[in-house]
């Protein structure tokens, strides 16, 4: 498989995931998107192994490793700090959830508080991606990715 074909496949899988997410929300069934996402990522990993025109040498691997380890170094602190805050909320109430207010029976319930935490986690994951890109750019520049000949 060519690299551009892989990118096309990744885009299609991404669109399917958006559709599955929508379906999951409409049917109120989190299993659909959870299973769909795992299968989608698995498919992309398998497809990536078949890409033939990747030119990745030891310098590119070094850049990826450095950027990955720096991202992890920074991110685990942020993630752990936020999780500690969540644990405080969890231990602060009997069931780990705020007590629901008394609302009319047909009033749309705003119940998935853990879902909001999931959204917050996704925002954090987006931050990881940006952090990784930042470190990648830094190390790519350090190891001469965009240098050109003087002549």
């Amino acid at each position, binding site marked *: 498989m060519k690299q551009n074909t892989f990118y096309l496949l990744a885009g299609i899988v991404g669109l399917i995931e958006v559709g599955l997410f929508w379906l999951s929300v409409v049917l109120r069934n989190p299993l659909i998107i959870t299973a769909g996402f795992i299968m989608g990522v698995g498919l992309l990993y398998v497809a990536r192994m078949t890409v033939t025109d990747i030119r990745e*040498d*030891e310098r590119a691997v070094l850049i990826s490793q450095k950027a990955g380890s720096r991202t992890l170094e920074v991110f685990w602190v942020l993630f752990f700090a936020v999780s500690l805050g969540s644990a405080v909320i969890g231990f602060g109430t009997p069931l780990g959830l705020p007590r629901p207010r008394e609302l009319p029976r047909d009033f749309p319930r705003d119940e998935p508080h853990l879902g909001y935490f999931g959204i917050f986690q996704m925002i954090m994951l987006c931050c990881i991606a940006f952090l990784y890109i930042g470190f990648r750019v830094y190390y790519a520049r350090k*190891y*001469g990715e965009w240098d050109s000949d003087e002549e």
Partner: protein
Amino acid sequence: MHDLTQEALAQELKVTRQTILAIEKGKYDPSLELAFKIARFFGVSVEEVFIYD
């Protein structure tokens, strides 16, 4: 000495041209394996291509 382009050397050593350029500019220190490959390609010893400082 050699009528050789960076691209041709990179292809021969199975690395990217940017890696060759980065080594030339001193921005990247190659692995031992790549250093030996470069030396072998030019038919010289590693010490003649790279110096430790």
